[in-house]
C-alpha cells in the first residue's frame, strides 16, 4: 500500500536505476545513486536513534539537498529547509520554534551550521561525511524497521512562512498530504518517466514540492536550475533548450519578465510542453505572449496556500483569455473540496464574493509548536454541525463566474473601503497589469487620507496610466497617486513585498 513518500524512491530506483534523477549544473545523479545517498542520510539518523524528530536542512540548493529530504523522510523523521542566505535573526526564530534534533549541512555551510548548533543544542550532521559512512547489516535491518513504522499521518516536512506578527509559522505537512497532491499532479498534467522538470522554486518555498515529489514518483529527471540563470533570462531559456526541459512550474514574475524582454523569439524552447505557474497572479497579457509562442503547450494556473499542500485549485488554459481578464484559478484539485463562504458563513452564489475555504487530505496538521494560531486558522466546517470536520480558511476572496470557474479577487485583508465603496485592490492591480508598458504593480490603500496608491515599474508614465485605466475601471477605483519605481521590492519568495511598500506610503505627501 502506497502511504509514505520514500516508497516512490524505492520504486523508481528499482525500475530506472540508471536514469538521471537529479542534475544541478555540478552533478548528475542516477536513481540508484539517489537512493544510495538518501539511505546513507537515513542511516545517519537511525544510528542516532532518531525517530519522529525534527531535522533542519541547511544546504545549498542542489541535487544532494533533494537526496537529504528523502533520506530524512525514509528514516521516519521530518525536515525543514533553512535557506542558506536567510538573515540569522530569522533562522534563530525558526529554530526556536522548530527545535531540531539534528542540523544536516553541507561542507560549504558547515561554519554557519556549527554556530547554530551551539545555540540550539542539535546534533551536527555533515552531508559529505554521512554519505561516506558504510551501512552494516544490523543497521540496515534497523532502517527497515524504522521505515516500516512510519504511517501516512506522520510529518514529512515543516515549511516556515512569514507570520503577520513577525514570528514565522511552521506549516506541518504529512506524507499523506504530499502523496495526495503528487498523485493528483501526475494524473492531471500527465507527468511520467519522460518528464524533464526545470525547477525554479527555492526548496523553502512549497512550489518545489511539485517538482521534487512528482519527479521521484515518476522516475523522471529533475533539473535544479542554477540560481544565476534566473538573473539572466536568455541564459535560462538556453538552459531549458540545452537540457531538453519539458515541464516547468515557475512563479509568474519569472515568466512575465521573459515575456516583457521579448526574448522568446531569440531562443527556441519548443521542447517545453507544460508550463505551470502559481504563487502570485499571472497577468494575462504576459501569459498570452507565452501561449502565442508555444501554442501546443499546456498552460495551467495553480492556486493554493502552503497550509493545504501547495495547491488546491487549478485551471488549464482551454480558451482564449483576453489581456484584460484575470486568469481563473479554476476548479478544485481531485480529492479536495472548496467552499466559498460569504460573510454569513453560507455558500456564496455565482458572482458573489466569499472567502475560499478548503477541506481534504491536503490540509496541514497546523502550525508547529503553535496551538493558538493553529486553532484560529483550522476550524470546524460551519456547514457541518454533526461531526468534527476541519476546514482551512485561506483569507483569500474569490467568486464563481458564469462558467463555474473560480476567480481570485484578492486577499480578505486587501479589501478596502474607499470613498464609501468596497474595493478589491486585486481588481485594480489586474486592470493595471493589462496596460502595455507595465512590468509589475501593487495597489495599496492609505487609510489616513483615504487614498489609493499605485506602485509600479515599467515603461509608462503615471498620467498615461490614469487615462488608460479610466476606460477599464469605475472612477472610484482609479488610483489617487501613482508612484513609478525603478525596482519593485520583493520578499524572499520573489513576491511583491507589500509590507515594505506599506511602510514607504507614509513618506507620500500628496
Amino acid at each position: 500500500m502506497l502511504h509514505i513518500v520514500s516508497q516512490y524512491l524505492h520504486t523508481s530506483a528499482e525500475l530506472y536505476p540508471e536514469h538521471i534523477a537529479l542534475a544541478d549544473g555540478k552533478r548528475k545523479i542516477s536513481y540508484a545513486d539517489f537512493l544510495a545517498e538518501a539511505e546513507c542520510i537515513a542511516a545517519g539518523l537511525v544510528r542516532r536513534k532518531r525517530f519522529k524528530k525534527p531535522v533542519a536542512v541547511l544546504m545549498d540548493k542542489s541535487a544532494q539537498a533533494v537526496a537529504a529530504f528523502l533520506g530524512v523522510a525514509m528514516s521516519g523523521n521530518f525536515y525543514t529547509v533553512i535557506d542558506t542566505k536567510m538573515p540569522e535573526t530569522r533562522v534563530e526564530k525558526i529554530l526556536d520554534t522548530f527545535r531540531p534534533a539534528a542540523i544536516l549541512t553541507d561542507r560549504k555551510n558547515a561554519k554557519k551550521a556549527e554556530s547554530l548548533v551551539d545555540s540550539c543544542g542539535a546534533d551536527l550532521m555533515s552531508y559529505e561525511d554521512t554519505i561516506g559512512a558504510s551501512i552494516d547489516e544490523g543497521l540496515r535491518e534497523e532502517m527497515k524497521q524504522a521505515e516500516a513504522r512510519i504511517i501516512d499521518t506522520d510529518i514529512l516536512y515543516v515549511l516556515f512562512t512569514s507570520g503577520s506578527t513577525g514570528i514565522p509559522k511552521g506549516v506541518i505537512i504529512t506524507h499523506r498530504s504530499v502523496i495526495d497532491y503528487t498523485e493528483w499532479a501526475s494524473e492531471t498534467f500527465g507527468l511520467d518517466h519522460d518528464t524533464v522538470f526545470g525547477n525554479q522554486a527555492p526548496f523553502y518555498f512549497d512550489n518545489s514540492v511539485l517538482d521534487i515529489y512528482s519527479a521521484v514518483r515518476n522516475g523522471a529527471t529533475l533539473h535544479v536550475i542554477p540560481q544565476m540563470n534566473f538573473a539572466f533570462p536568455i541564459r535560462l531559456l538556453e538552459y531549458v533548450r540545452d537540457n531538453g526541459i519539458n515541464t516547468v512550474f515557475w512563479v509568474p514574475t519569472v515568466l512575465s519578465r521573459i515575456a516583457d524582454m521579448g526574448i522568446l523569439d531569440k531562443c527556441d524552447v519548443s521542447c517545453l510542453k507544460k508550463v505551470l505557474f502559481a504563487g502570485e497572479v499571472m497577468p494575462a497579457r504576459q501569459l498570452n505572449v507565452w501561449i502565442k509562442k508555444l501554442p501546443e503547450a499546456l498552460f495551467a494556473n495553480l492556486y493554493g496556500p502552503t497550509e493545504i499542500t501547495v495547491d488546491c485549485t487549478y485551471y488549464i488554459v482551454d480558451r482564449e483569455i483576453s489581456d484584460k481578464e484575470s486568469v481563473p484559478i479554476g476548479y478544485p484539485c481531485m480529492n479536495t473540496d472548496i467552499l466559498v463562504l460569504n460573510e454569513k458563513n453560507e455558500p456564496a452564489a455565482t458572482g458573489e464574493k466569499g472567502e475560499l475555504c478548503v477541506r481534504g487530505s491536503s490540509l496541514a496538521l497546523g502550525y508547529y509548536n503553535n496551538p493558538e494560531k493553529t486553532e484560529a486558522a483550522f476550524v470546524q466546517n460551519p456547514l457541518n454541525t454533526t461531526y468534527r470536520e476541519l476546514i482551512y480558511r485561506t483569507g483569500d476572496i474569490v467568486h464563481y463566474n458564469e462558467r463555474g470557474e473560480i476567480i481570485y479577487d484578492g486577499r480578505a485583508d486587501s479589501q478596502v473601503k474607499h470613498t464609501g465603496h468596497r474595493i478589491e485592490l486585486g481588481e485594480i492591480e489586474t486592470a493595471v497589469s493589462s496596460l502595455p508598458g507595465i512590468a509589475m504593480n501593487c495597489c495599496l490603500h492609505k487609510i489616513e487620507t483615504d487614498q489609493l496608491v499605485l506602485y509600479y515599474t515599467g515603461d509608462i508614465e503615471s498620467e498615461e496610466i490614469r487615462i488608460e485605466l479610466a476606460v477599464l475601471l469605475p472612477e472610484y477605483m482609479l488610483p489617487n497617486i501613482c508612484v513609478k519605481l525603478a525596482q519593485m521590492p520583493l520578499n524572499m519568495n520573489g513576491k511583491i513585498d507589500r509590507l515594505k511598500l506599506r511602510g514607504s506610503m507614509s513618506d507620500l505627501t500628496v
Partner: protein
Amino acid sequence: MEQNNERVIIGEMLKEIRPEFDFSESDNFVEDGMLDSFDIITLTNMLEERFGIKIDGLDIVPENFYTVGSIAELVRKSGEK
C-alpha cells in the same frame, strides 16, 4: 570625461543596491556572488531610467555585469541601438 561620469553613477547605483559590498575589490561581481537575480533586475531598471536607454534582453548576460567597466560598455552599446 562623460565616460568617467558614467562610471561614477554606476558605482553609486551598485552601492545603493548592495551597500554591504565593496565593489572596487572585485573584478567579477557575478562570480563573487555580489549581485543576485533581483539585483540584476533592479540595476537594469535603474540604468534604463537614469540613462534613458533600453537594454536588449540578449545583452542581459553575466559578462556584461562583471565590472563597472563592462556595465558602462553595456550602457554605451544600448544607447547606440
